[in-house]
Each structure stands twice: as structure tokens, then as C-alpha cells.
């Protein structure tokens, strides 16, 4: 009963292979003798969390009063965690804090400096160990994508991002399978699964009378090594839940065909019929940054310095390709001056560009951009239209 | 408490070129004493003062801001200060609503002939801010 990192759907030109993280040597796939699924009662689960809280930072879904939504918060005790019924709601962190922010914060200090000592730039203290509970499989897949994007490339022109890596190496992701996906979920259409393990260290499934815990990495196995091994009946129950959840997601996308169609539009920009398709699709888009900021794979950043009373810092701050400022040169020239070219860039990034860059789609089907778009733009409809309107 | 007494506020003063700046000048020429708390920025008209300037000053470490222009009816550009007055009124009420301490941002009219009044305004504003203590709410730190 070995839990395997499943392979994601491959699109044209995509490299096949394991999605095991290229970042962080700690995340070894679990050895077969430690891979046996375990069973955790709620009491054992609470004990595990309280033990971890004493050792490191623990984040888990918490119902937030102001927003009325579930978001990840640092917890001080197992009593704060809301796990009942959690497997039955949509993706966590639709609003508020999301797992991405714990690996790639919206504002992150790169260096501290003092203008009186030019040339001296001091890196911040290394991040602390953290464990994230209740990460959804789509978000796990997104982390695996970020691992690959932020890791060094073989051609050495793009070295590894040490800030991302430092956080990633000190992070353990404990997933929670979705028993009832939301109506905005479409992970299966982009190669994921409501019970997928990609990017995770341990996957929990809510069996209602306890959690089934399947180790994915050695890190994950270590958390549950002393728990009882699950029975055949537990495994069968999990299997049924996973199948039901999978069947609830009916959206399908021919991602390979989509990529071929999208790639054909690259050359005809500006004049070709594809441009009219993009213009029509982007009309309701107002180029705000909601979709990109909430997207678990969007990773663009700006670098900005600030100085206050003799102390300064260089920070990186999330940026969005939907903003005009994003691509505007200091001279005023803007290579993506039109709203539809910015809209297009985002969709192309998800379904074409990152396949060319690192061999993977960068849409994991979490549906956050659908539920958060102020004008109700639905990426599934966008993709449907593109498949219909663009020639193969 | 002693820290509070020693606290010397830093106040950014946006003074219109035609009246309040001249008023400050007169205060200086007349050797009228007032606290050395203000850092003057001369602007062509109080109508030039964007609320952004005021908030930016507070963000960048000012403990208070004073905006001063010509008395209503005396604007060198006829109506600049009238329009500015509406803007400042909204800013004043909104800052209060947001819980920025009343008195952090002050407005006054001082003419070129009112050297003593200028000194009096600075004394009053300084005293208010001294009582409020250092600006922490709007501060960048």
C-alpha cells in the first residue's frame, strides 16, 4: 500500500516524470517500510498538534471572524483547529492567508542595510520550522510547481531562489483530502485529484471517526510513525471517499490540445483572429490583481527598497502581470499596454508558458480565481471558449 | 513621564508663499520666540497641498503637520484656499473617523502681517502634539 506521488497530466512538450520536489534535500520519498497508512483519532491528532506547537510554528485552518472564512493561522493549541467538516468545504484560504504565503510571503525582506555603511547588506535570520495542517491537494500540487519554478535550472542561467528554498526546507505540508469538492473545483481537469499527494509530506483523509494518514515523504512518515496502522476496512472507506470526491469534479480540459492552440496564437498577435478572441474574452476583466494574488502558483514579485531613519531594507513584494505598471519601462514604453494583452498573459502563463519553462501547467484547478473574480470571470469558461475558437 | 516632557515634536509645516510664509518671516525678523519644532515647506498656495503630502509626512516620521495659508478672501490666486478648505475639512473629519489622534494635523490662516499670530499658532500646535506624544499610528516603522 505504497502512497505514490501521482503523475500529473502531461501536455504537449511536457517533461514526464515524478513531481518530487527539486528543492530541499529533506523531502525524500518515504521508504516502503515506513509508508504504511496510519489511523489517528481526534485525540491523537490533538496530541500530535500540541506536541508540534511546542517545537515549531504550526499553521492550520481557523474560522476567521471578520471575514467569516477559513484561513491558515498560526495556532497555539489544538483546540483552535477547525477540522470537523473541513473536508467538506471548498479550498481553504479562499480569503485570508493561504499556504503560498507561508512559503512565498507577500512582503519578504531580502536584506537589511544601513546607508551609513554602503555595501554592507545583511540577510534576515533564517525562517523557523513550520508545519501546515489541512493543505488541500491542489495547493500541494501548486507548491510542487513553485518548487520547480524557484529551483535552479540546469543551464545555470537561473540559480535557485535561496529565500524560497530556505522556507521550503523548513516546511512540512500535511494535506487533507477533499471529501466534497466545491462547485468551483476542477483539479482533475488539470491533472490533479481531490486525494492527490503531490507536494505533500503526509495526506490525511477524514473518515469521520478518525483520520487516515498516508505518508508521502520521510518527513511526513516521522509525524505518524507511532500511530496504529490502518485496517483494510479503513483503506476501503478512504477509497470510496476518494472515488466519490473525484466523480464530483466533472470539468475536463484537453490541456494538450489547448496548449497547441495557444502556442499557435503567439505569432499572430496583434493582427490575427486570435487577438479578437482574446479581446472578447477579456472585456469583463478590469485588470485587478485578485486572481493572480490568490492563485497558488502566481509568483511574480517586485523588488523595492525602503529606508527610515538610517535603517533600510530591500524587500520583495508580490506583483501582478495584470497591473499596467508591471511591464511599463521607465521611459513610459509598455510592451503589454492593452488590457487584453495582460489578460492573455495570465491565461497563457497557466496553460502554455510554464509548460515551456519548467514542463508543467501552472493551473492546479483550485478555483480561487473563479470565486474571487469581481466580475465573475470563470477560467473554465475562458478555456472552453479558447478550445472552441482557436484553431488546433 | 519625563520622556514625555522632553519629547520635542517634529512638525512639518506647509506654508503658502504669499501669506503664511511671509508671516513666518515676519515672526523671525521681529525676533518673536516660538518653539523650534517646525520644518517649513513653502508651497505656492494652500490649494497646492494634497492630503497625500500630509499623510506622507506623517508616514516618514513627522509627529505632526501644520498647513497654513492666506485668510479666506485673501488668496493670491483668489480662490485657492477656499477650495483647499473643503479638501482639508474632509481630511480632518476622515482622519478623526479613522482614529488618527485629533491634533496631529492642524490647519490655520496666517497673513503676511501676522508674525505674532504665526508664533502663536506654532506654539499651540507644538503644545498639542507634545501632549499627544510621538506619532506612532501613521509611522512607517
Amino acid at each position, binding site marked *: 500500500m505504497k502512497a505514490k506521488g501521482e503523475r500529473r497530466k502531461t501536455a504537449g512538450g511536457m517533461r514526464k516524470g515524478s513531481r518530487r520536489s527539486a528543492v530541499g534535500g529533506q523531502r525524500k520519498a518515504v521508504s516502503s517500510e515506513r509508508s504504511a497508512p496510519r489511523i489517528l483519532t481526534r485525540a491523537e491528532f490533538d496530541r500530535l498538534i500540541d506536541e508540534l506547537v511546542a517545537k515549531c510554528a504550526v499553521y492550520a485552518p481557523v474560522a476567521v471572524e471578520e471575514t467569516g472564512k477559513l484561513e491558515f493561522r498560526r495556532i497555539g493549541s489544538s483546540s483552535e483547529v477547525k477540522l470537523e467538516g473541513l473536508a467538506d468545504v471548498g479550498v481553504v484560504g479562499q480569503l485570508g492567508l493561504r499556504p503560498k504565503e507561508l512559503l512565498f510571503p507577500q512582503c519578504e525582506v531580502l536584506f537589511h542595510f544601513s546607508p551609513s555603511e554602503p555595501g554592507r547588506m545583511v540577510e534576515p535570520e533564517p525562517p523557523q520550522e513550520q508545519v501546515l495542517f489541512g493543505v488541500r491537494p491542489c495547493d500541494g500540487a501548486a507548491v510542487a510547481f513553485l518548487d520547480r*519554478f524557484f529551483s535552479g535550472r540546469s543551464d545555470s542561467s*537561473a540559480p*535557485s531562489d535561496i529565500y524560497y528554498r530556505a522556507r521550503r526546507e523548513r516546511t512540512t505540508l500535511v494535506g487533507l483530502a477533499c471529501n466534497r469538492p466545491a462547485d468551483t473545483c476542477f483539479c482533475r481537469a488539470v491533472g490533479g485529484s481531490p486525494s492527490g499527494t503531490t507536494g505533500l509530506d503526509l495526506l490525511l483523509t477524514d473518515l469521520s471517526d478518525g483520520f487516515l494518514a498516508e505518508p508521502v515523504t520521510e518527513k511526513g512518515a516521522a509525524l505518524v510513525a507511532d500511530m496504529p496502522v490502518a485496517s483494510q476496512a479503513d483503506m476501503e472507506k478512504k477509497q470510496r471517499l476518494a472515488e466519490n470526491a473525484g466523480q464530483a469534479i466533472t470539468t475536463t480540459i484537453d490541456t494538450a490540445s489547448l496548449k497547441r492552440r495557444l502556442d499557435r496564437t*503567439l505569432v499572430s*498577435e496583434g493582427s490575427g483572429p486570435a487577438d479578437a478572441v482574446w479581446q472578447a474574452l477579456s472585456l469583463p476583466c478590469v485588470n485587478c490583481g485578485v486572481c493572480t494574488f490568490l492563485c497558488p502558483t502566481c509568483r511574480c*514579485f517586485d523588488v523595492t*527598497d525602503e*529606508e527610515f531613519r538610517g535603517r533600510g531594507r530591500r524587500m520583495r513584494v508580490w506583483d501582478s502581470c495584470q497591473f499596467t505598471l508591471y511591464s511599463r519601462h*521607465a521611459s513610459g514604453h509598455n510592451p503589454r499596454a492593452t488590457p487584453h494583452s495582460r489578460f492573455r498573459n495570465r491565461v497563457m502563463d497557466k496553460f502554455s508558458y510554464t509548460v515551456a519553462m519548467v514542463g508543467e501547467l501552472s493551473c492546479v484547478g483550485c478555483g480561487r480565481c473563479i470565486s474571487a473574480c469581481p466580475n465573475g470571470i470563470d477560467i473554465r469558461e475562458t478555456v472552453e471558449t479558447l478550445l472552441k475558437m482557436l484553431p488546433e | 513621564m519625563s520622556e514625555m516632557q522632553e519629547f520635542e515634536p517634529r512638525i512639518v509645516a506647509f506654508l503658502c508663499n504669499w501669506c503664511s510664509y511671509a508671516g513666518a518671516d515676519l515672526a523671525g525678523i521681529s525676533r518673536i520666540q516660538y518653539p523650534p519644532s517646525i520644518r517649513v515647506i513653502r508651497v505656492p498656495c494652500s490649494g497646492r497641498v494634497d492630503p497625500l503630502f500630509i499623510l506622507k509626512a506623517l508616514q516618514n516620521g513627522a509627529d505632526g503637520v501644520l498647513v497654513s495659508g492666506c485668510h479666506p478672501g485673501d488668496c493670491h490666486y483668489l480662490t485657492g484656499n477656499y477650495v483647499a478648505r473643503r479638501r482639508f475639512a474632509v481630511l480632518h473629519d476622515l482622519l478623526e473617523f479613522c482614529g488618527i489622534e485629533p491634533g496631529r494635523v492642524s490647519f490655520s490662516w496666517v497673513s503676511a502681517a501676522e508674525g505674532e499670530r504665526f508664533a502663536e499658532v506654532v506654539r499651540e500646535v507644538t503644545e498639542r502634539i507634545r501632549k499627544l506624544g510621538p506619532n506612532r499610528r501613521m509611522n512607517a516603522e
Partner: protein
Amino acid sequence: MTANPYRPIPVRIEQVTIENEARDLKSFELSFVNEEHRKGWHFVPGQFAFLSIAGVGEAPFGIASAPSEPLLRFTVKRIGTFTTALHELDRGSIIGLRGPYGNSYPWDLMTGRDVVIVSGGFSFTTLRATLVHILQPENRPGFGDVTVIYGARSPGELLYKEELKELEKRPDLRLVICVDRLNGADWPKTEGLVPNVLRQVAPAATNAVALVCGPPVMIRFTHPVLKELGFSPDRVFLSLENRMKCGIGKCGHCNIGPKFVCKDGPVFSYQELLTLPQEY
């Protein structure tokens, strides 16, 4: 511990030269503060680097000096926050440097061939580096005819004027300097827009490689002329300068389709650009 790719190394400004009449173009010549940094610094003409001022920020610039020159040179137009701050710095100031980044001009392809350099405005920087590199006595025999067409709006806006006057005398180089309007000046000798001058000069396309760098409008009108002259798209190379923040393919800003100008560029063949969206 791997080196932090975001960490700038300290360099000292050794020389500041005002390059144009408008005084908004300055050349900064830099030396390394630490010897080990100097030893570890290797670049090829066409590459760029980030200059960095703590508290102000960073910005990328093409390297205007050739590898053989003792000081690193950057020619910078005062246009934004960073460049304004840089322009205020004097000799002796310490700033930061990150790089070198990007590919370079296609030196393998250029070897043994004629080289045609077409440049306008202040983008001449990396092409100056290229030209100086080619003209090194040990390098010059490796190339065929070298033609340079360099234009600016007015005589006062030309970069590296004294150097250009010297280069004009060289027999092994065809250097045509032009300006949009001469306004009665006696130098340079040619009046006209770069694409038009290129058409008149008409360098042979057989066995030649063209390097183009300039403002977007010049690039747009230069392409058709090169095509007329018989340059195939795989022999025309452009150096692009999209907005960028990291230089190492992470921040996302400089993408043209799936390519990043910082790591896949800044030099692209026209052939490659034909397969990418026109986002440059």
C-alpha cells in the same frame, strides 16, 4: 551555503562622464572594491548587470565596456527614480553590482563573418562594448568587414564622441555616424534617420550578421530595411530591454511569452522573435 543571487557586490565609481548636451546621459566607470570579486567577474559583450543603491533600489543596464578594459562602464540615462539617484553620485561613491546576466551577441556565429552594427540613441552601450571587443588587435582578424551605423537625434546626443572621432579614422572599420538633424553642426557628416542611412550604406548581407539595438520605433523601421538588403531573420539579432527586477528568471516581469529577456535574452534573433508575442 550557496551564494545569494540577490546579493550585490560593492563597486566604486572611479569616473563620471557627462555624455550629452542635455546632460541626462552619464557614463560611470567602476572598479571592484574586493579583489576576489574582480577575479570572479567574467562577461561577454552583450550581457548586462544590475546596479544597486541601498535605499533606492536596483536597475539593469547593458555593460558598455569590453572585457579587455580595466574599468566596467555603464552609460545611464536619467529617467526614473534609480537613475536620478545614480546621477547624483560622485567619484568615490560605493554602489552595488549584480551580474553579469543574460546571453550575449552570437560570437560563434559572428566569427569569420561580416558584422553590421545598427544602433540608435543611448542603446549604443553594449554595441560599443561589442565594437571595442572586435577591434582588439588579437580579435580583429577573426571577423570580416565591420560596418557600424550609429545615430542620435542631434550631434549633442551622440555618446562617446571623442572615441567615435578616433574610430572614424580607422581603415578596418566602416563607421557611419548620423543624426536626425545636423542643425548646422560640422560633425558628424551624415543627416538622416538610422533606417534610411542603413539603406544608403547598404552593407552586403552575404555572410554577414546584423546586430540591432535601439528604441522600439527604430527597431520597427530597421527590420524591413535589413530584409530588403537580404538579411535573413536568423542573421539579425536584437538586444531587448524589458522591465526586469531580478535578472535570474524568477520575478516574472521581463517575459515575452515563455521566454525571459533576463536569462533567455537580452539578445534574440529576429527568427526567434517571430515565434513570440510582440511584447517588447
